[in-house]
């Protein structure tokens, strides 16, 4: 979840909760206030009623201003009770509705006999007021929340700007390219973050460069002594006064030097792919690429009596990459499909819009699928390979953002390479 979404959500939930509680309290207080106001009003009227009571009894008066209704009844003798307030529902003849009335019930004495008097006052105007005030408050709260929401966005955008700038630059950071350059933030925490990041990335870049140079130099420097060993042993082999045993000793030295130099060359290639030293961008037709490389292996394919089945459903599919790397990638995949095929087996080549696949028959892997693209993972029974071919293919694919996947189904090993959209057919 995004930072902004999260803060907004927090603020929204918390203020919603607070305003809900506050709203309830506010409503209750307002209600109570209006009730006590009604009670006070009724008490005031009670005094007036006391003063003019004979007029009520005489029938000259039937109501008073501020009072909705009055009922006077003779009380049974000896009845005594406190003045009491209450609510009741009554039918209003004017509006033809039941409405709530506040009443005051009390005893009034006149001329030796006592009467129970009930004063009624409608609560509707007070309720209306409470309703309106509450509505107004709610609208205010909603406006306030909206204000907070936009203010939060505004503050957020301003305050965290440096942070997001840094994040964007970090995303684009590449050890091979220039060191990270961040702007000048004015928030202390961000200044610290900038310092830490710059120190880290600087270190990363220099380490990477050093490693790169080291690998480059080592592989290069190793080749010359290896060349000397190889050539000297080869010369020695031509000597006519050596017995078979000595010859075999020399051959095994020569062979080991060969192995070492091949390993060295391959590792150097991987390093150079990782360092993105292949900068060519050629638009290559996959059909041509596959067929060219296939031709190089044709004799090996014939020797092992392997059948190649080609399904090119999109002959216009191109791939944009360095020509050298394209050759290496296809060579390695083809070689893999030939070497690990069964005798008189089949190879399936498939070019579709946006992908190509290569499959070969063979027994299942004896190591995990996840190991397949790792370095030095190989079939130990087959000599002369290092287990680097597929890891080179993976490196090349990673380099160009191609997705390579492997699966094994019905005795068929299949590699599929998905090409990104920008290199699709045109």
């Amino acid at each position, binding site marked *: 979840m995004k930072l902004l979404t999260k803060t907004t959500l927090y603020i929204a939930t918390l203020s919603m909760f607070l305003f809900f509680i506050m709203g309830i309290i506010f409503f209750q207080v307002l209600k109570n206030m209006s009730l006590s106001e009604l009670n006070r009003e009724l008490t005031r009227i009670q005094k007036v009623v006391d003063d003019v009571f004979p007029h009520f009894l005489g029938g000259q008066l039937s109501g008073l201003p501020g009072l909705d209704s009055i009922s006077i009844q003779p009380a049974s003798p000896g009845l005594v009770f406190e003045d009491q307030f209450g609510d009741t529902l009554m039918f209003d003849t004017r509006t033809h509705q039941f409405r709530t009335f506040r009443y005051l019930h009390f005893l009034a004495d006149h001329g030796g006999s006592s009467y129970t008097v009930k004063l009624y006052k409608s609560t509707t105007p007070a309720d209306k007021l409470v309703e309106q005030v509450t509505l107004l408050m709610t609208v205010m709260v909603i406006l306030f929340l909206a204000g907070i929401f936009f203010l939060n966005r505004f503050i957020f955008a301003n305050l965290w700007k440096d942070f997001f700038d840094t994040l964007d630059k970090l995303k684009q950071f590449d050890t091979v390219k220039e060191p990270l350059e961040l702007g000048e933030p004015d928030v202390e925490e961000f200044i610290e973050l900038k310092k830490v990041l710059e120190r880290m990335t600087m270190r990363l870049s220099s380490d990477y460069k050093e490693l790169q140079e080291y690998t480059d130099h080592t592989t290069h420097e190793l080749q*010359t002594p*290896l*060349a*000397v060993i*190889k*050539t000297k042993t080869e010369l020695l082999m031509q000597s006519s006064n050596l017995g078979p045993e000595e010859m075999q000793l020399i051959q095994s030295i020569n062979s080991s030097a*060969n192995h070492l130099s091949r390993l060295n060359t391959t590792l150097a290639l991987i390093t150079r792919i990782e360092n993105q030293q292949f900068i060519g961008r050629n638009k290559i037709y996959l059909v041509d690429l596959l067929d060219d490389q296939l031709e190089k292996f044709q004799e090996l394919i014939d020797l092992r009596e392997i059948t190649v089945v080609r399904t090119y459903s999109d002959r216009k599919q191109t791939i944009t990459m360095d020509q050298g790397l394209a050759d290496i990638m296809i060579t390695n995949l083809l070689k893999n499909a030939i*070497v690990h095929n069964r005798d008189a087996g089949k190879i399936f080549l498939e070019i579709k819009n946006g992908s190509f696949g290569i499959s070969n028959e063979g027994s299942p892997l004896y190591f995990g699928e996840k190991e397949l693209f790792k370095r030095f993972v190989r079939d130990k029974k087959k000599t002369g*390979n290092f287990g680097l071919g597929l890891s080179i293919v993976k490196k090349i694919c990673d380099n160009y953002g191609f997705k390579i996947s492997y699966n094994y189904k019905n005795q068929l090993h299949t590699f599929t390479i998905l090409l990104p959209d920008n290199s699709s057919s045109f």
Partner: protein
Amino acid sequence: MQILIVEDEIPLMESMVSYLKMEGFKCEEATSYHAGLCSLDKYDYICMLIDLNLPDGDGLNLVKIAKQNQSNSGIIIISARNALEERVKGLELGADDYLVKPFHLSELVARVHSVARRTRSHGEEILTFGMIRVMPEERTCFVEDKQVDLTRKEHDLLLYLMSNRNRVITKESIADYLWGEYGGGYGSYDFVYTHLKNLRRKLVDAGSPDYIKNVYGVGYKFSLE
């Protein structure tokens, strides 16, 4: 049959000179850029072997000058760097071939022969060995008058063997020669064996004696006796 070698690694230079001398070439040695520059016009070389990484100058420069001065000498670049750009640059400057260190001496000799053939021969050249005649340009092969049908790789292999006649050749060097630095390895020794077997069978079927001798545990030797 003069060859100029510009190489600053003395032991490597010695090996190359020894092997090339066995093949009947005469070698002019230069261990630096400047020595190379001085020796450029000394002889009419059939081939120049130039190392790119010299302590006192860029071998590519030497290639450029050599191409201007002696246009009918073959040039083979020798480099420990296997960068495609460098290779392309060298070939664009007029070099005929590019050999990556460490190489097999037998491969070096085969390349020298091939470059010499390309730059020197006018018209069709015929290589002979015992009863075998090969026309490299046309890619044809005869045992006496009988044409032998060879595949591309078998033909390359035969040329390689003929360039290294009477020498012990390892199967590694054959694999590297036939499939290049990224193509070798990976079970290719088995393929070398198969190719050799087929080539041998085709030549013998055409009436030639078996010139391909096994040197037990080491490799092969292409010789008359």
